Every structure is written in structure tokens, then in C-alpha cells.
């Protein structure tokens, strides 16, 4: 898609580490540290920090519960919530000053490779979840309601992750580009408008991604 990332240094001689990868490491470290701190200080009467985290988790639980139903959402909660948290952190990381300006740190989701990776992960997850919910139902879905729908439904299965990846990439990349253009037109004040809008869009994109994954999941694991 005409995008290229500058390789900072090759890891073990073969794995090319780019700015996106560095940013993902930072995000992983931040999320891990937050979870460790919260888990270490779990209390019956939560403090401020634990309260904030609990509110977030409760929000996610309700969000997926509304889409999938209580029992199913609890079963797949770990994957869906991890996806949501990672994407929202990755989107917001692009708003920090300096991120995206240099080659060393870039917002991960502004690269098609990362979003395509997320798409592939959710594709594999959907197939496994569908097969585990029932092999017969999984294969029956491709030939219902009619047999001749098979090629279309097969194609649809591969278009889903591709469109997920392209949507996320296009939104985040487009936002960064627009902010950059505004910055080059008039550097003082004007980009803030777009960045304030980005605050909304970043959360919305993370929501849309996980929402669509859970809707596909609902379709695949439908009880007969």
C-alpha cells in the first residue's frame, strides 16, 4: 500500500525492528505494569486507581455483554478485551508529542502491517471459535441458505479481516496525515482542533473494531 517503515536495527540479524515495534513494546510495558500494580494492590474497598480500572473493566463487560449475551461474552472476554485495550492504547499513542515525527516511535495502528496482523489474529480467533462451537454448524454456515452461496460466503470470510484492517489503518493514518497537513499550513493552534477530534475518533475506532469482531463471533457461534 505504498507504505514503508524505516528499519532502526535488526534484532537477532533477521527481525527488523521499526518505530511501530518500539512503540508496541512501550505499550505492552505500560499495560503490563498497570495490570501488575493493580493486581498487587487488590483491596475489598478500592482506592482511586483501582476504582478507575474497575470502571473500565465493567464498561467493557457491559459492552460485550450487550452484544454477545452474558455467558458468551464472559467466555471470550479475555481476547476481545485485550484487542480493545491494545487498539485504544495504540491509537492514543499517536497523540503524544513527538510520536510519528521521528522514525524511532510511531503509532502502531498507523501502519498497515500492524492492523493486518490484528486482522489475521481475529480471523484465526473467529475460525477457532466457530469450530469449537460446533463443527457441523461451522460448515453448514457456508452452504446456507443455498448451496450456490458457497463461493460468496467463502470470499466473505476473507474480506471481513481485510476490511477490518483497512478501516483501522485508513482512519488512524488519515487522521495523522490531516494533522500533519494542518501543521504545515499553520503550525500554531490549528492542529489542536484536529487532535481534539482524534481523541473521539481513536476511541470510536477501537470500539468499532472490537464491536465488529464480536458481531462476527456472534454469527459464527450462534446456537442452533
Amino acid at each position: 500500500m505504498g507504505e514503508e517503515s524505516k528499519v532502526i536495527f535488526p534484532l537477532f540479524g533477521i527481525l527488523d525492528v521499526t518505530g511501530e515495534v518500539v512503540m508496541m513494546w512501550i505499550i505492552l510495558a505500560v499495560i503490563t505494569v498497570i495490570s501488575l500494580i493493580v493486581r498487587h494492590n487488590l483491596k475489598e474497598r478500592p482506592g482511586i486507581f483501582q476504582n478507575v480500572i474497575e470502571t473500565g473493566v465493567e464498561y467493557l463487560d457491559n459492552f460485550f455483554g450487550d452484544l454477545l449475551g452474558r455467558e458468551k461474552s464472559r467466555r471470550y472476554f479475555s481476547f476481545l478485551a485485550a484487542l480493545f485495550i491494545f487498539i485504544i492504547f495504540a491509537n492514543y499513542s499517536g497523540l503524544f508529542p513527538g510520536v510519528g515525527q521521528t522514525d524511532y516511535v510511531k503509532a502502531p495502528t498507523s501502519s498497515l502491517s500492524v492492523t493486518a496482523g490484528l486482522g489475521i489474529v481475529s480471523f484465526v480467533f473467529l475460525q477457532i471459535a466457530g469450530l469449537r462451537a460446533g463443527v457441523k454448524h461451522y460448515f453448514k454456515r457456508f452452504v446456507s441458505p443455498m448451496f450456490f452461496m458457497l463461493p460468496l460466503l467463502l470470499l466473505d470470510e476473507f474480506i471481513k479481516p481485510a476490511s477490518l484492517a483497512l478501516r483501522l489503518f485508513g482512519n488512524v493514518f488519515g487522521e495523522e496525515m490531516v494533522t500533519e497537513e494542518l501543521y504545515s499550513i499553520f503550525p500554531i493552534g490549528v492542529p489542536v482542533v484536529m487532535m481534539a477530534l482524534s481523541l473521539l475518533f481513536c476511541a470510536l475506532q477501537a470500539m468499532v473494531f472490537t464491536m465488529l469482531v464480536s458481531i462476527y463471533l456472534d454469527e459464527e457461534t450462534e446456537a442452533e
Partner: protein
Amino acid sequence: MKTEIIALAAAIAISVSTLGPAIGQGLTAKSAMESIARQPDAAKDIRSTLIISLALMEALTIYGLLIAFMLVAKI
């Protein structure tokens, strides 16, 4: 001459691909508002369906945007 045509193509790609989804999203939001006004109890369900359908329409614009960026990169 070639760069001018590419620039024009990029402009057309993004503007045309914005037009259709914009109309569609407007209509969707309009009917969602109306149904929320008529039935405030169902606002929660309507809102999530609204966001999904808006996102699906948004994807078309994003494809146009990507094509426009690819064309601009060629100049």
C-alpha cells in the same frame, strides 16, 4: 502534464468517495434520531446498530482516501 492528471485523479477519488457515504450516513443518522425520539427506551440498541452501520459506510470513504494517498505519493 502527468503530475497534474494524477493530482486531479486524487482529488476526484477522495471527493466522489466522500459524497455517497456522506449521503448514506446522513440518512442513517436521521432515521436513528427519529426512532430514538419515538422510542427512547430502545436508544441503547439503536445506538450500537447505528455505530456499526456508520462504520461500515465509513469504510468506503476510507478506501477512497487510501487511493488518494497512493496517488499523491506517486507525484
